[in-house]
């Protein structure tokens, strides 16, 4: 089946008018599967890091949300060890009027504003609540260790 018009248009616009600090490139052999890179927002513990994610548009997209997961390890109270993201617009608050672009912006914003009160990674959230400074320090270390060019 040919790709729905909407997915083609979204992909074209993502390429033509890219969002600063975000890139999303579809796989050649599967145009529903995107390699995503998000730059850590300035003045966040993730600044300087480039985070890889995978994004998949299910068959009934945009009626159901895209499936997104962090591939780069990240220390964040709303992102768990498997890279799964706790974000309302990816679950119950999804709307077909949202799009890849807005979703990736929301994820970038989530990096800038961790929310330990709605945690996915309990241990990280606990750390964040008990000692913000130390937690942020760990997040910075992880960013440096896993999300920079020098990362192995």
């Amino acid at each position, binding site marked *: *089946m*040919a790709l*729905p*018009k*909407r997915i083609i*248009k*979204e992909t074209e616009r993502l390429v033509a008018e890219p969002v600063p600090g975000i890139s999303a490139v579809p796989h050649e052999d599967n145009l529903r599967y995107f390699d995503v890179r998000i730059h850590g927002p300035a003045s966040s513990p993730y600044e300087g890091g480039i985070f890889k994610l995978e994004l998949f548009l*299910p*068959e*009934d997209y*945009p*009626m*159901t949300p895209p499936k997104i997961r962090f591939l780069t390890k990240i220390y964040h109270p709303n992102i768990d060890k498997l890279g799964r993201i706790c974000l309302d617009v990816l679950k119950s*608050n999804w*709307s*077909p*009027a*949202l799009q890849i672009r807005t979703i990736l912006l929301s994820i970038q914003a989530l990096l800038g504003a961790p929310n330990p009160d709605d945690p996915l990674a309990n241990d990280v959230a606990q750390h964040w609540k008990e000692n913000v400074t130390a937690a942020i320090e760990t997040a910075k270390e992880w960013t440096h260790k896993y999300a920079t060019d020098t990362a192995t």
Partner: protein
Amino acid sequence: MDRISIEIVRRRTTAGDTPTQLDEELHWRHMIGNLGNKLGHSRVLYGGFLLSAYTMAELGELRYDSELSFKSLSTSGDHFEVQDRTLLARIKETIQNEMECQVCWGLMLDPLTTTCGHSFCRRCVARLLDHANSCPLCRKQLSIRPGATEEPSNQRLRALLESLIPDAVLARAEVVEIEESTTSDRGRVPLFVCGLSYPETPTFLHVFEPRYRLMIRRAMSGDRKFGMVAYNGRGEVQGDLGITQFMQCGTLLHIESMQLLPDGRSVIQTKGVSRFRILDHEMLDAYYVGKTERIDDIPIAAEEALEAAEISRFTTQASDPGSPNRLLSAMSTAELMQLCADFIERMKGASASWLASNFLQAYGDMPNDPAVFPYWFASVLPISEAEKYRLLPTTSVRERLKITAGWVRKVQGMSLGGMAPSANDDDSDHNEENDSQEMPDVTESTDRANLPTNGPSALT
């Protein structure tokens, strides 16, 4: 509209020196009773007819129902026409972009406006309702009935689209028509992956998954047909298709009646039309669509030849023609049918639970047509799905009756104290050249497991 005024302003700065004399011609209502202001406004403006008219309206000198007469004062001739044409093209483009549905990102098709004031294609609203009941743009609850068939279209939007960009509207409608039409006569069949159905036999379905709501809605607006295929629960290879989620052979169903529930679920009653084999498949909006070929029975002459050939070949080996263990292949098609019919009679006499009145109410009484009888039998007899599936690829009545007669033998064998029922006819059937339908051992064990649960006492 904002975008149009932006476009106008942008155009105004480039408007050349093409003066136009504009005279407002008032509607007759304004001519009477308002003696002080009988005359319309009159002005010389620049930028072609469209732009100057817009400017005049903006200045408040052009009433909504007034006519306007133009007279070019340009010395160079028709320069303004070029300007008008370019501006009109730009406005059309702007409107086309503005009229994009926020769900499908295509031109709004049959636009429908919600009570919260947002407009989408009618078909997109219907799909939204399959999943949620809120507006995608503002999340306000929608009060639109499932299917969105009763809501009026937004006539103003529709008129605007159809008068300003009729070609684009037509093109969009055609694309959607091609994308969504899966009419069975073109061999493209939408597939409902669920269970087994048979020709001439009813199937009742409760449709609740969003993708199947959409599929059934599309079928209802088309030829009311869709294909039913069973789950390939054991992950068996399906011919050239490889391992698919569904079995390769299925039944085309016609929707006889549909009851739409208020929450969008529906209960449908269907009747089997014909059998098909899937040659290829793809996804359409989360459900499968198969490229299919029809499976038909061989002509009657060929059927008779097959019968004669088999009987002559197997009668030589057969023992006593009156023996209950007589080879099925040595029996005439009529005898096979009789064997099954006798069995049904006996089971009725024994008040078998699978022949209870509620089953017969749904599937009807036993049909006497040997071509149809096996389908009816499969619908009521509690045996494994794998065994029943064997009926679908058959190409002769005889082949089907042999399968069903085999079931009868098996059930009888079991009720005679659990003897291995396959010892007699199934083994001898292996001698046949065309024995692709051989039953794997697993099937048999499923059979025995299935049978008693569906009414062991009735099988005595």
